[in-house]
């Protein structure tokens, strides 16, 4: 039974070759969707870990659009294609997102890769500007993602800079001067906090202590809320994922706060209404709920989302804007007559906007794309929920880019 001499080195070789063997397997593992009649759209987002709900929401927006595109039929340069979504999990980590994007572009031949977080977008921009070419579908309202002049980036949502001024305008109408800060301590929350504080200071208002907390790790919101309230703010800035935002608002009302809330764009009214008594949300300003758009495709998307994804959650702009964006890039492929040239697809985007089927017009369909690659809708609106619980819509002047 003693192993022969020949086996021993061979066993050691096995370990040594683990690296090599895994190279081969991983190389085979990925390339599932590169048949000649398939268009692969890549997506790298947080599908597990703390931000998984967000990542899945965006994934479902892309997936619904692709389903509808396939139903209608996609023809590029005379050839019929099926569109397919290839998703990879990055757990919100920038380096994982970049690795995924490269994998999607090289192994799945995806000409377009969607990434929904500013860190991942910037990490991927280090790649797509040099060797591995792909058009980056960037879902982040942080304007710095198009400020660095990356030529293959398409920024999907409105810049959050558009919101700060009209939000502050509205909430200082009645002479409010004290702003409490209770945002989430994420990358995005920090940028927002800075922006709102600057805007508030520029009108001579008083910005109180920054009580930003990490919404994901705090066990009890009562402490931070009472700290904020102790300074008697007239307006509280807050916002992170909708659900904890709703709980914090509820806690503030419970502790007797009667002022206004300035809610950053990550939190959505329609989701918060499901998590707390909607009355708590009165006298707040935030982004416009998707259901209140009357674009041609709005109702259909709401129905298909309820049917195919979940009835428990409403459609939010995360779903809707990515739904629109997927249709835009596929239309751009049709206009450009190519499914694999990211530069040509990027150049076809301005023309493609006018040619996207009406059904994909859901929530403020973009009317233009800036030279830097930002999709913009000229009639952007914010939503103010009055003290009586009615929604009012205010049009927003967007800054020039």
């Amino acid at each position: 039974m003693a192993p022969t001499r020949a086996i021993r080195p061979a066993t050691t070789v096995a370990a040594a070759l683990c690296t090599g063997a895994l190279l081969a397997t991983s190389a085979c593992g990925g390339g599932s969707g590169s048949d000649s009649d398939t268009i692969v759209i890549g997506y790298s987002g947080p599908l597990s870990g703390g931000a998984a709900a967000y990542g899945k929401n965006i994934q479902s927006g892309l997936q619904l659009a692709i389903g509808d595109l396939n139903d209608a039929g996609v023809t590029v340069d005379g050839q019929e294609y099926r569109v397919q979504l290839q998703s990879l999990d990055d757990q919100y980590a920038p380096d994982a997102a970049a690795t995924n994007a490269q994998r999607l572009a090289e192994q799945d031949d995806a000409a377009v890769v969607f990434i929904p977080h500013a860190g991942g977008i910037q990490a991927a921009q280090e790649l797509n500007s040099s060797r591995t070419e792909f058009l980056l579908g960037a879902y982040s309202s942080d304007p710095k993602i198009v400020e660095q002049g990356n030529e293959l980036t398409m920024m999907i949502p409105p810049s959050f800079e558009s919101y700060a001024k009209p939000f502050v305008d509205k909430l200082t109408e009645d002479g409010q001067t004290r702003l409490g800060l209770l945002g989430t301590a994420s990358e995005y929350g920090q940028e927002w906090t800075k922006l709102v504080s600057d805007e508030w200071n520029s009108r001579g208002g008083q910005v109180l202590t920054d009580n930003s907390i990490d919404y994901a790790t705090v066990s009890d919101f009562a402490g931070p809320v009472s700290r904020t309230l102790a300074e008697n703010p007239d307006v509280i800035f807050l916002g992170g994922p909708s659900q904890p935002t709703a709980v914090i608002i509820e806690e503030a009302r419970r502790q007797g706060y009667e002022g206004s809330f300035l809610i950053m764009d990550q939190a959505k009214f329609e989701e918060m209404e499901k998590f707390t008594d909607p009355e708590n949300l009165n006298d707040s300003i935030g982004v416009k709920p998707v259901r209140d758009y009357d674009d041609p495709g709005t109702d259909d998307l709401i129905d298909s989302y309820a049917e195919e994804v979940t009835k428990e959650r409403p459609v939010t702009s995360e779903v809707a804007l990515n739904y629109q964006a997927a249709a835009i890039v596929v239309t751009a492929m049709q206009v450009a007559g190519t499914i694999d040239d990211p530069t040509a697809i990027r150049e076809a985007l301005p023309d493609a906007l006018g040619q996207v089927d009406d059904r994909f017009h859901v929530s403020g369909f973009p009317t233009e794309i800036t030279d830097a690659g930002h999709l913009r809708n000229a009639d952007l609106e914010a939503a103010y929920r009055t003290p009586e619980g009615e929604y009012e819509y205010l049009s927003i002047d967007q800054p020039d880019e």
Partner: protein
Amino acid sequence: MTLFIQQLFDGLALGGVYCLAAIGLTLIFGVLRIPNLAHGALYMLGAYVTYFFLVTVGVPYVAAIGLAAVVLALLGVLMERLVFHPLRNAPHTHHMIAAVGAMFFFQAVAQALWGADFRRMESPISGSVTILGAQISWQRIVIVGTAVVVLGLLTWFVKRSIHGQTIEAIEQDRTGSSLVGISPSRVSMLTFGLAAALATVAAGLVAPINLLSPTMGDALSLKVFAIIILGGLGSLPGAVVGGFALALAEVMTSTYVSAAAGEGIAFVVIVLVLAIRPTGLFARAVQR
């Protein structure tokens, strides 16, 4: 002053949660010398199972927590058998990584069963009371009260009951205990079951004032380690004192220094305490 009172009560409520979670961890450490990094994941599962009984099945709140504690106790025993028992002679590095593997698995299970999005669990205990100008919700008072009662019962169990005394015996002298007929294996299972049940009670109490998500245990996990180190690994009174001390330190630092400092204070305290007393505040003769 009102703010101080408010923060004091919030700190006590948080301390109650920390204690309940920390005691389980310190018991496991005392008996098995395992730094169970998956403890936060058990806490998270405890919250979801409570949610399942309360919302999906529809039993009353207290019964839901009780049933969930039983389910989690069984899961804790299972985990001890499948993961830690085979590793009983391995160094603690291996326990840590095995626990990380288990944690990944539990989070994936919760996401597969309940989805990645936040869930809210309503408790029947609503309303609040005003004490010295501070608004204290009944839920938080219940948290502190439950923590005290559970701690009392646990102390009685460990000191007075036959099964509980076996835990203490094993903690003190593993070999000696086996000689007098105490089965270390059975005590290990008992400890894991008890720890998971306590974590579930903590989770069931705190879930109504927060939200459920598959990663809700992550932040707690690290803090609870801070607590039991502070109190001295394996020490029950240490875990209690450490839990309340750390919660109050956290709340007060956030209030009077900054929110970011509050987040880090637990770890600064550990570094300071261990720099001065390398074996924690309530150090005991450590069994080898």
